[in-house]
């Protein structure tokens, strides 16, 4: 029997007319756990004869014989047609209505097997609590028929329950029953008469604990947020270039390897200190807390030992992707508090981009993945190297400016010196300038030559500096040249004049009376000094000044 186009979203108890008045009946009394729908349970269903609705033999079979269940029908009509007749099946014509027979009447005669099954079926159907229920259990063996229906058992420690998950529902479900999974199943209980078994007809299935975890997540998040643990204000900045990085993660697995790889590539100057922990399963939350605590103690120990540079400056808390349950320890309150209380900033990289845990909220920085956490913690050495080169370029630009200023100054000085002709002074200055320029050229060669394009960029920056320097040097130079010119007796000497002094007292001789014959004199010429002795008075036609060939002559 094949069902064509069954309504997908009909309530599974839709075959029970809800507008029927309830009548007093033992069976109509809801158990404690029954849903409100129970109250409107139609007594007529229970007491009136009705056409058989059971599934024909061969349409459905116990899970042990899946080959016979190729096309099991839904066991109940999905339309709210309580009395919808089904085609009579070969075995189903009945001589008499089954219910409601008082139990006593069963005892008075011999019953047919089908009567018992039917009585059980009706009893089951009359329990509203069995028509719409949620069951949690572990999935046992699963078989899928060629028609696409899934048959599986749901079990707990003491019992098991046969379940049927019809094709259409199964294909539209995001979640498949798989052996060993804990699941929560929504559906109804009914009796499959031909086999005399009751089964759970599954409408929906989902992993166990999902709703529960989500509720706990939100509740804990609200509580911790109210305490201010997730406040942006208490997030600490990460160090620029941590020398030591603590890592709390599993010692085995890809996450640790990925972190090592990223840091080795980006910033191998750092040192990684792994504090291994268990990142999923029973006890993982406590293990994560212990790992963070070890890093805290290690940092304290390093500081106490007088080597604070060995203490971790930042900590990565990481875990690879996984199911909500796998990541659950990162939603544990103890983990959240350990992250918040950690003495150095914590970067949390748990799961994939889409996974958000409370530890992420608590962390100083949340990274989408473990590798991203590693990238956030250290700079990229190629970028740092570029910054360093830029610093040196700037330094080179500054020196180039100073050299240019000095060269301009030197040129002006050289011209002034040329005029004055103090060759010794000039030679010395040239030597000094030559030395400085050699040194400057040595220092700049290569650095500046190699980086012409940067220089151009720098030029705009340096221009003000350069101009200012040139400016004050020029002023200084002009001031000193003017001074020299004003003072200069040398200029007079250069024109051939001489200065005559008495040896005895260095008095400048302005009057022949000051230099009687025999007076020892000193004559200052433009390029040196000669000694002389006064020979005669002005009346004598002798030489004015007696040459004293002690020193070199002209």
């Amino acid at each position: 029997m094949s069902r064509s186009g069954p309504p997908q979203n009909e309530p599974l108890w839709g075959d029970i007319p809800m507008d029927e008045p309830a009548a007093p009946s033992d069976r109509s009394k809801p158990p404690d756990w029954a849903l409100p729908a129970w109250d409107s349970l139609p007594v007529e269903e229970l007491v009136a004869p009705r056409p058989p609705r059971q599934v024909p033999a061969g349409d459905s079979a116990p899970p042990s014989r899946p080959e016979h269940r190729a096309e099991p029908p839904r066991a109940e009509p999905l339309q709210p047609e309580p009395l919808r007749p089904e085609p009579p099946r070969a075995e189903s014509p009945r001589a008499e209505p089954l219910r409601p027979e008082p139990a006593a009447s069963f005892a008075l005669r011999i019953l047919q097997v089908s009567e018992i099954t039917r009585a059980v079926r009706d009893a089951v159907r009359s329990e509203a609590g069995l028509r719409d229920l949620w069951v949690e259990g572990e999935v046992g063996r699963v078989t899928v028929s060629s028609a696409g229906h899934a048959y599986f058992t749901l079990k707990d420690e003491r019992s098991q329950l046969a379940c049927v998950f019809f094709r259409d529902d199964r294909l539209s479900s995001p979640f498949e029953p798989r052996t060993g999974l804990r699941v929560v199943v929504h559906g109804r209980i009914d009796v499959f008469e031909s086999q005399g078994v009751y089964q759970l007809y599954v409408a929906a299935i989902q992993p166990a604990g999902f709703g529960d975890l989500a509720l706990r997540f939100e509740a804990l998040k609200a509580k911790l947020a109210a305490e201010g643990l997730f406040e942006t204000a208490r997030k600490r900045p990460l160090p620029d270039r941590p020398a030591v990085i603590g890592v709390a993660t599993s010692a085995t697995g890809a996450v640790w390897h990925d972190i090592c790889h990223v840091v080795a590539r980006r910033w191998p100057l750092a040192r990684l200190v792994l504090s291994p922990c268990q990142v999923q399963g029973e006890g993982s939350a406590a293990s994560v807390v212990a790992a963070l605590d070890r890093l805290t103690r290690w940092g304290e120990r390093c500081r106490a030992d007088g080597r604070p540079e060995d203490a971790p400056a930042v900590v990565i808390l990481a875990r690879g992707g996984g199911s909500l349950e796998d990541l659950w320890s990162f939603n544990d309150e103890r983990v959240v508090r350990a992250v918040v209380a950690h003495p150095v900033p914590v970067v949390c990289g748990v799961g994939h981009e889409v996974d958000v845990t409370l530890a992420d909220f608590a962390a100083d920085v949340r990274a989408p993945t473990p590798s991203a956490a590693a990238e956030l913690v250290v700079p990229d050495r190629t970028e740092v190297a570029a910054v360093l080169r830029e610093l040196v370029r700037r330094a080179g630009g500054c020196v180039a400016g100073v050299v240019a200023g000095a060269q301009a100054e030197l040129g002006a000085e050289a011209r002034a010196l040329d005029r004055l002709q103090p060759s010794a002074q000039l030679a010395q200055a040239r030597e000094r300038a030559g030395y400085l320029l050699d040194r400057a050229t040595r220092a700049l060669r290569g650095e500046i030559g190699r980086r012409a394009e940067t220089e151009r960029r720098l030029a705009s920056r340096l221009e003000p500096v350069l101009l200012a320097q040139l400016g004050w040097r020029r002023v200084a130079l002009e001031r000193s040249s003017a001074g020299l010119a004003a003072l200069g007796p040398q200029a007079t000497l250069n024109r051939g004049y001489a200065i005559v002094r008495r040896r005895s007292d260095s008095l400048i001789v302005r009057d022949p009376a000051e230099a009687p014959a025999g007076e020892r004199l000193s004559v200052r010429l433009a390029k040196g000094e000669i000694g002389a002795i006064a020979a005669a008075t002005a009346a004598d036609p002798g030489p004015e000044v007696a040459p004293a060939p002690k020193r070199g002559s002209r």
Partner: protein
Amino acid sequence: MSDQVATAPAVDAASLTFDEALAELQRTVAELEQGGLALERSIELYERGVALHERCAGLLSQAELRVQRLVERAAGELVAVDARAEEQTD
């Protein structure tokens, strides 16, 4: 250099840590950019800057990641044991 202008005795750049060398390089460039320096001082600072840069660049290109693992001894004492990160070669 025999005629260096008197200055704080410079530590050999090769003995500095990366952070020390970088900090000094930044100070050096700042001093140069401030201007008003004698030629000798400018060149001296520049040469120091180049040495500091070489130190930093050398550290960046030659450093090898060090990996340790915290091990807890019986009495709760922590020891950092050098470890090799698996397959760091690629």
